């Protein structure tokens, strides 16, 4: 088992990172009145961990006994029937699903499956009416239509069902859904917090941690706890008695993006753009989300850029990211950004150096 999983907090009590949030949640849950929750925050900040801990707090250890089901749902949508395959993780008290996996048919999942799930109201051991919890991951991937149908479900079945939504950015969740939930922002952990966690792990593992080493990892981690712990373990595996200047293996795709960035900086021409396109395709093929590619590319480019251009480049990056969201083929828009950058940069070079 990797350290990421091994040292994942199981309860709301012994959290290092979001202890204040956890305490609030604990109070909330113990009072038996739990509203719908919407967790949002950057990846690797601990949303999922918190959700699991809440479930455990609500239902006790039985919440951990989950089974994976891969069910096919037949949905009668007016004139035709749609077969939807969906993987769910469920215990007796809750169910986790990823409605975004259904693509453009996510509306039916929300309308039918979730509704059905919400309708069946469990009765707990004391004969009291209990409630179920539905955990929906990646709500920001849901289409607008699906989110609209979600809001009615949330109201109608609120007596028997609690929804816990989880997403990276609340901006992609409609206002209506947001207002029906208790929004909980999970910040990315600060570097100090990450350092603390790493030190904790080192202590548990009985490792000698040179001072400053944990800080270095934390700095490189992009404030993602998952990444920090993983690279910590990588370092441990590669060379144990840590040295202070130990090399930290980089993320491969980030390396590749920086290679692309230096390609772009070297030459600005349609021909070069064509080569860049091939490399971008390589990244996309490896399932790396285009937004992340664009963001990373921008960061890499900014590193090498003159200060006066930075503002403009950022503006265009945002512009093309917006268009990428509206459009379908990400490659068009990333490429358009690269072309735009090349144009700006070339004009700049000509202006400066003649």
């Amino acid at each position, binding site marked *: 088992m990797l350290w990421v999983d091994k040292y994942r907090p199981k309860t709301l009590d012994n959290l290092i990172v979001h202890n204040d949030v956890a305490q609030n949640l604990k109070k909330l849950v113990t009072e038996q009145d739990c509203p719908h929750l919407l967790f949002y925050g950057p990846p690797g900040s601990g949303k999922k961990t918190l959700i699991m801990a809440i479930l455990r707090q609500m239902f006790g250890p039985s919440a951990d006994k989950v089974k994976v089901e891969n069910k096919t749902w037949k949905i009668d949508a007016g004139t035709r029937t749609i077969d939807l395959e969906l993987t769910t993780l469920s215990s007796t008290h809750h169910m986790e699903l990823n409605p975004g996996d259904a693509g453009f048919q996510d509306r039916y999942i929300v309308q039918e499956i979730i509704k059905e799930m919400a309708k069946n109201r469990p009765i707990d051991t004391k004969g009291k009416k209990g409630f179920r919890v539905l955990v929906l991951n990646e709500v920001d991937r849901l289409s607008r239509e699906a989110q609209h149908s979600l809001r009615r479900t949330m109201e109608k079945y609120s007596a028997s069902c609690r929804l816990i939504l989880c997403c990276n950015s609340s901006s992609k969740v409609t206002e209506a859904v947001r207002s029906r939930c208790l929004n909980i922002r999970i910040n990315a952990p600060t570097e100090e917090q990450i350092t603390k966690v790493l030190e904790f792990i080192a202590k548990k593992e009985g490792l000698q941690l040179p001072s400053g080493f944990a800080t270095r990892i934390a700095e490189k981690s992009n404030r993602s706890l998952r990444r920090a712990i993983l690279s910590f373990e990588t370092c441990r595996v590669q060379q144990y008695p840590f040295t202070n200047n130990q090399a930290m293996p980089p993320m491969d795709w980030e390396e590749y993006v920086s290679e692309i960035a230096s390609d772009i900086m070297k030459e600005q021409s349609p021909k070069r753009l064509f080569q860049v396109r091939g490399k971008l395709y390589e990244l996309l093929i490896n399932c790396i989300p285009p937004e992340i590619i664009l963001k990373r590319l921008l960061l890499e480019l900014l590193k090498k850029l003159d200060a006066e251009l930075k503002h403009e480049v950022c503006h265009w990056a945002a512009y093309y990211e917006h268009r990428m969201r509206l459009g379908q083929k990400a490659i068009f828009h990333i490429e358009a950004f690269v072309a735009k950058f090349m144009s700006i940069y*070339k004009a700049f070079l000509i202006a400066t150096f003649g």
Partner: protein
Amino acid sequence: MDANMYIPLPEELEWLEANSHLHQDLEDYEDQEPPEPYPEEEEEQLPEPPSPLSQPQVNGQKRPLSDGPDAPDSGKRSKADLPETGAEEDWLRYSPPQDTDGDLESMVVDEERIVSRYASEIDGDCIPVTGPGGDRVYLKISATGSDGRLKKLDLEGRTKGLILEPISVLMQRVEQDAFTKALQASSELQNDAILPETQVVNEQLWVDKYAPNSFTELLSDEQTNREVLLWLKQWDSCVFGSEIRSTTEEVLSALRRHSSIAQHQKPSGMSFLRKNKGQRFSDGNSRYSNNLDQENGNLKGLQELWNKKSRGTGPPEQKILLLCGPPGLGKTTLAHVAAKHCGYRVVEINASDDRSSSTIEAKILDVVQMNSVMADSKPNCLVIDEIDGALGDGKGAVEVILKMVSAERKADNRKGNVAKVDESGQISSKKGHKTASLSRPVICICNDLYAPALRPLRQVAKVHIFVQPTVSRVVSRLKYICNMEGLKTNSTALTALAEYTECDIRSCLNTLQFLNMKNQTLNVFEISSQVVGQKDMSRSIFDIWKEIFQKRKMKRAKRSDNCCSGMSNGFDFLHPLISNRGDYDLILDGIHENILQLHYHDPIMQKTVKCLNTIGISDLVHQYVMRTQQMSLNVYQPLTAISLHRLIAQVQKPIIEWPKSFMRYRTTFMEKMDILRSWHNKIAPYISRHLSTKSFVEDSVSPLLHILSPPTLRPVALHLLSERERNDLAQLINAMVSYSITYKNTKSDPLPGTQLHEAASDGLSLSFDPPIADFVTFKGFSLGHYALGVAVKQLLMHEIEKKKILQGSMSKTMHSTDGKRRENWAMTMEEKSRAQSGNVSHAAGCAENNIEAAKSKASASMVSLASGSSGSAEASVKLKSSRDMKKPPRGSTFFDRFKKLSSKGSQTTNLIQEPVTLERDSRPLLFKFNEGFTNAVKRPVQIREFLL
């Protein structure tokens, strides 16, 4: 009466020879002219009187009349006799060459009497004769003179009366002829259906009226015509059993043959219809005998020679001809004319027929393998028109044809002599060949060569792409037709018309006829108005890309005098082009794919930015349309393409590639997502729920790969590892099991970049089972990942397997830390046992271990019981049962392992020993439960029995 046949002029003979079958028609037709006027029943037989202008009646009529009785007869005979004699007889029927001279004279006489270029100038029945130069004259059919010649011939015949066959045989044959004739007469009506339309009616479309009837009249490209004809001719050897003839000897013999066939067929055919049978029979017989005996000496040797020659050649290499080209260039016409020219009966299957694969298979088989019994013996030629029909319903036909071609390929290998088989094509088909094979030419016609349904066909067929005929050729033809119809035109107008319709002859003719009906004259300026129906034709997608990327020549722009002509013209031209095609998504993909390869001047990339922005807009529109289903917004899609054209169009020809990369990206992306997803489902839920695919590729893959292949792990035997290293190893295995990653053999070379050369050097290489290493492979990018040696990987693989089995046998609630502790303990135990017990007595040591380990396990389960887990009872039950039956399964696994491992190199001997012993000792109660083998469990066994 036979002598009334006109033997043509010498140069005509040459021409006749070239179209070895057409000549028969001509002769046959001439045979029909009766000494007396046509009786009434004759009219029924020939429902359409011959038109003076067109020739097809020649082709059409010969079918019912003459050819029918002959071939079935000869076919049967050749079956009955030895093949050689059968063939001989064929030749023997030819008339003597001497005949030609005499007849020639009489013909000349006839011609002098009434010959005209125009049919209208001849009153009474007339017959068209076409010379080798394409000149056509019309001969009057005269009733006089023929009788006289007939007698003369008959006399001649009787003087030299030596018959090869006895008269009884000949009589029999004649009777048979009569019988087939009767059959044919009964099916006359059906045959009429395939007769081409010949009647000249005022309302008839000009397109049909002036459709080319002979090969020389074809308007399409000469080269293509010739190649099609050549291809068809290549079938001759197998269909007709004869070579392609070109020598002068052959000319003569061909002539002889046609005359003799005509002679001996004629009487029987006609006599059946008429009343005076007896006389005809006798006539025929006598003449026949005459011919036979004359021929006998001359031709025997020659004919044998030919037979030999023809044996050697089979059907052409490619058995299918695929004609493709835009509509209206005469593909169908060419197929028909060429097939007829070569003496085939054309059977057409077009889009109006049912073309599901089941019906079409039966149909094609009928056509290709059988000869029509009743009508004529002409072999069939299948023409499948519009094979690229909409919605892929041509697919059925394509599949059937492909099946037959492939069957033929196989059959060819088996049979040595193709020609032989084909000569008796009917026989083989009747016998019921187990594989249906193609023995007749098949011509497929399509508009779009690159239709997906045709992809497999393209590879096996001989493809001819029709090009537009030259404008001048079309114009001259149009002029001729206009003259014929009395429509006044000038050539400039006709040229403009031809250019406007892109040499679509059909469209030109329809337009002209339309104008004629309205009594208008063709006007140059009218052409672009609504008078001419503009074709609603969609061009191939490559053409569209080409038009977008390439600047049109300025000629077009100059012609119209508007100031902004260039711009508006481009728009006018491109807009319908693109919107007719419709497939905007693909068009945009193609533009995107190729745009950066163009050579346009763009110093600071502003054009590129604009282009990509435009493409982006198109993508946005597309996505919006798809999302909201407002298809009407698609109207704006062509405009984006046109604006791109304005930006980047160049004069030089672009090299256009099919947009592959996006599709490739799409498919590989889906594949990888599938891999991830299925792997995700395999991981235990308490891990997988925290791991989304996004976070996996973003954060986890690279560190995970590093963690899974630690460079600190030395490739040495387990017992040489230090305590800490062993702990590390256990942890690694633990991690791999919990993420359900293992190693697996792969034959292919490891992907460059991920694995080191070390692994690749020996034949097999081990790679991660869910190929997670693939997620960090980028083209042209080398990674700094350390790869473990093969030995280590093997070790890991075994350990993982072991661990999995162990986990399966243990209760799920057992904590992994417990397991690890136990394992460590077992490792130390193992060393101890190795030290004290040799190879021989390791069973005893094993037993000792077993007991101890069992104890430890019990304690472990006690621990888990204390911790409140539910599965401990189950575990202890398992413990018991496993103790009962540990021996047999363990033994088998032991040997299996050993076998597997012993095949490895000598350097791993240490390692071989290691896992085996380790396995034996670390797991005292290891057993494998095979479902279905319940005996072992049920049998009560004393524990003592195992300890021996």
